[in-house]
């Protein structure tokens, strides 16, 4: 009865193997590496960079362990610090011919030392939290109110234009927070306007009312529209933050949304809070200017003449120079949105731009006089400008217009992103800030490690002494639990923090409960006179119901922590919940597997090594039976 079918052993073996493989990368530590990423928002890194870096390294006579393209950076790993420094210099010199205006960021970094075959099965080490690694942490709050106000402001402009176009006379449009109010002199106009606005602006919900002799329409943003505005605001802010943080050359920056309106920025290894804040808080600016197309300017562009007065020379994204007038038509402040899309007639990819009411008036005036000419859109970062695109003006433009022509969908996406990257969708404020020194981090790792180690050792020693062989099985099951837990956490690429380590320790301390329950039950069955095989069987059977009940209640507490906790509590809860699940498997299935393997085959099992089984009615025998293997008396 105590035999497992082969498939059960197979499952255990597979779990053990998977556990080993995925836990392994955590033990290799980190090796020095060089990371190459783009220094400019207009420059995108692709896979072709990896061979280029490799080439540079070969020329410099350096041997990298590997060079790989990942996400939006190329990383090369080296055996020692010396090679890393040399490689950084070599790559930096080759990629950035002009050190004053670098196109690429070449930064020192750390990469896992685990062998390539482990990385190729996606067995990666866990991330270490800031408290273990040192670094800077920011919690930023996005001002959603102003994002909504911005949207309402834009809509107010739209309403004005729409009503004017249809010749519907209104008695004033006002914006009160996120609500728009339009007044009318008579009911007919109001009804007509209402029909028009409901049709044209699906984001607003209209309610009509009467105020004295005036009729008024109050429009408010629909909840789903509000949500859309907020979602896109936070996504855009995160994108902008990513671009900016890239510049710091941080190894594994974490930029995550937390809750509906928060962004967490973690910069491991960065110690200089002031610089990090400076970069995160910086805004790139966007400017719209007219292209100078005079003869002198064309000559200047080809390099055969000086740049004319009142104009500047900029480089277009493709690399071609362009002479642009100094006078700024519009700035990024007036740009409300830039979205990639498709032209309705030609079905070509395009970028749809929306500017606010003030911007629309300027655009209208400027474009009316300049049809057929080119307008350049410039992005200024760190005081240096670059032309994102310079389309030809086809007609007079209003608040909404589009850039079309010879673009792929990817290009349209990039352009839209660049246009938006200039600004944050909504202002952000740092509401929490933490700095942890690297030595403190290393200390915390040691502390966490020692806590788990000695706690485990104490439990293992006790279990082995008290339950003998069953105790050994329990200890092995507990070790297996730890292995599985680490493997799952590595697979999930969870970030390990000190509370997380505490949760691992606590989970182990609690997981032993299942084995204690089982062992006590088996003893009890033996005490009741059951034969060893029956005792093992019923012991496990009966303990299982209790284990399930008690673990489910613990899991409920864990899940609640997971749902409502934030920051360190969340880290704790993730480990806690996973630990409960792995402990059920290891304590019940794995330890039973071991017991079955050891005892299951023995047909005439006389005794089991579970420590002394004491019987109330045989108290005097107990001393005599104080040896390792409890004798099981015949049934009475």
């Amino acid at each position: 009865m105590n035999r497992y079918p082969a498939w059960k052993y197979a499952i255990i073996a597979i779990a053990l193997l998977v556990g080993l493989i995925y836990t392994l990368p955590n033990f290799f530590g980190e090796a020095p590496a060089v990371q190459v990423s783009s220094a400019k928002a207009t420059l995108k890194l692709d896979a072709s960079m990896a061979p280029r870096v490799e080439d540079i390294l070969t020329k410099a006579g350096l041997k990298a362990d590997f060079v790989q393209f990942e996400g939006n950076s190329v990383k090369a790993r080296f055996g020692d610090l010396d090679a890393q420094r040399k490689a950084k210099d070599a790559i930096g010199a080759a990629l950035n011919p002009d050190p004053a205006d670098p196109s690429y960021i070449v930064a020192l970094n750390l990469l896992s030392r685990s062998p390539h075959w482990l990385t190729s099965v996606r067995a990666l080490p866990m991330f270490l939290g800031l408290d273990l690694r040192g670094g800077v942490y920011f919690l930023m709050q996005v001002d959603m109110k102003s994002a909504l106000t911005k949207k309402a402001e834009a809509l107010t402009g739209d309403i004005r234009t729409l009503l004017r176009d249809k010749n519907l006379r209104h008695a004033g449009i006002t914006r009160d927070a996120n609500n728009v109010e339009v007044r009318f002199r008579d009911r007919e106009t109001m009804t007509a306007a209402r029909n028009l606005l409901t049709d044209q602006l699906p984001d607003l919900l209209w309610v009509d009312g009467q105020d004295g002799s005036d009729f008024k329409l109050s429009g408010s943003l629909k909840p789903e529209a509000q949500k859309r505005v907020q979602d896109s605001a936070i996504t855009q802010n995160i994108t902008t933050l990513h671009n900016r943080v890239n510049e710091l050359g941080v190894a594994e920056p974490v930029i995550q949304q937390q809750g509906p309106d928060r962004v967490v920025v973690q910069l491991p290894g960065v110690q200089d809070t002031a610089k990090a804040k400076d970069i995160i808080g910086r805004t790139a600016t966007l400017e719209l200017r007219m292209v100078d197309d005079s003869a002198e300017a064309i000559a200047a562009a080809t390099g055969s003449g000086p740049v004319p007065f009142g104009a500047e020379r900029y480089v277009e994204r493709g690399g071609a120079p362009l002479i642009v007038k100094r006078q700024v038509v519009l700035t990024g402040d007036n740009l409300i949105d830039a979205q990639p899309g498709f032209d309705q007639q030609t079905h070509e990819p395009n970028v749809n731009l929306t500017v606010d009411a003030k911007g629309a008036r300027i655009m209208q005036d400027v474009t009316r006089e300049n049809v057929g000419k080119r307008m350049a859109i410039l992005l200024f970062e760190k005081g240096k400008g670059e032309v994102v695109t310079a389309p030809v003006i086809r007609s007079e433009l209003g608040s909404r217009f589009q850039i079309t022509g010879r673009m792929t969908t990817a290009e349209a996406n990039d352009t839209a992103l660049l246009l938006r990257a200039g600004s944050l969708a909504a202002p952000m404020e740092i509401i929490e800030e933490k700095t942890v020194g690297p030595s403190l981090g290393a200390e915390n790792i040691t502390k966490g490690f020692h806590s788990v180690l000695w706690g485990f050792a104490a439990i293992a020693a006790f279990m082995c002494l008290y339950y003998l062989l069953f105790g050994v099985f329990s200890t092995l099951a507990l070790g297996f639990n730890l292995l599985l837990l680490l493997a799952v956490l590595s697979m999930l690429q969870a970030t390990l923090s000190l509370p997380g380590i505490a949760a691992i320790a606590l989970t182990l301390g609690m997981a032993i409960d299942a084995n204690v329950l089982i062992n006590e039950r088996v003893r009890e069955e033996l005490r009741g006179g059951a034969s060893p095989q029956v005792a093992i069987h019923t012991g496990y059977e009966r303990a299982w119901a209790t284990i399930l009940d008690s673990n489910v209640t613990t899991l409920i507490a864990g899940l609640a922590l997971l749902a409502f906790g934030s920051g360190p509590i969340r880290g704790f809860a993730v480990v806690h919940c996973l630990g409960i699940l792995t402990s059920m498997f290891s304590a019940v299935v794995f330890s039973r597997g071991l017991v079955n393997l050891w005892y299951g085959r023995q047909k005439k099992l006389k005794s089991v090594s579970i420590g002394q089984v004491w019987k109330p009615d045989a108290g005097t025998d107990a001393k005599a039976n104080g040896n390792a293997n409890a004798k099981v008396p015949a049934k009475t």
Partner: protein
Amino acid sequence: MEFFRIRRDLPLMRHALVFNIISAVTFLAAVFFLATRGLHFSIEFTGGIVMEAQYAKVAEVDKIRTRLDELKLGEIQVQNFGSTRDVVVRLPAPPGTKKDEQTAIVERVFTTMCSAEGGSVTPATTEKGEKRQICKSADGAEPVRQQRVDFVGPQVGRELAVDGAKALAVVIVGIMIYLAIRFEWKFAVAAIIANLHDVIIILGFFAFFQWEFNLTVLAAVLAVLGYSVNESVVIFDRIREAFRRYRKMTTHEVIDHAITSTMSRTIITHGCTQAMVLSMLIFGGPTLHGFAIALTIGILFGIYSSVFVAAAIAMWLGVKREDLIKATPAKDVDPDDPNAGAVV
């Protein structure tokens, strides 16, 4: 080895009233201290600035405190943590303080701490490109070093408190529903009362000793809630089994039997968990200190409450054999039960 050689079921329920009175007294004391002293909330809840500094020699906390009080920055806390050389300074940040102002406050405080040691502050850049204040004394030694600086908005704290309360509510409701389904509502009520009693007592300890109540302690308190219910469930499980097996026993005896037969497991399990927690307490350093303390109290009172409180409450609520037998279908009845055939 066999630690627990109990010949007869312990007549615990005979003294249920005494235990309940003890519980009620501790509980009321905890509530009293919570109400009068209140919890010493960490900066994560209240908002403010935390600065950790390490001194080259033993830090004179009183001296630092008097020097910092001269700055008139409001209530400043200076405490040792970990070793006698490590000092943590907590500064209140009035709502609406700008980040730059906070940084300025930190700089002022650190400058004061540095000059108290006879050094002067230079904004230096280390080889790693870190820019931070470095305190140098005349002979070039570094008498005090800034380890960590945190700015926390009080807003975050309020949310944490709300989320913590929500988590607590969900845990209570979730566990009650589960226990009511698996067992019976009387057990659910008994288990929850017993466990809330644990949680309040832990909080009472934190209020009485004015230990710092931070996020990890909150996590520990909520974990204790799950852990302690766990304990009650094991006993309830036995009560149910005993009701089925021993038809002649009274409710009293059944509960006594259940507690006695799980006693060994209770002590061993908690001992093991406590071993782990003790290890955290010894090796875990200041971050895990509060966590380990909360768990230690939680474990000790967890044993007490599930043995003496939960079962007793279930008894007062009038658990009957019918409550549990009815709840489970007949096929669940133990085949080994000699009385199984008696069911009509």
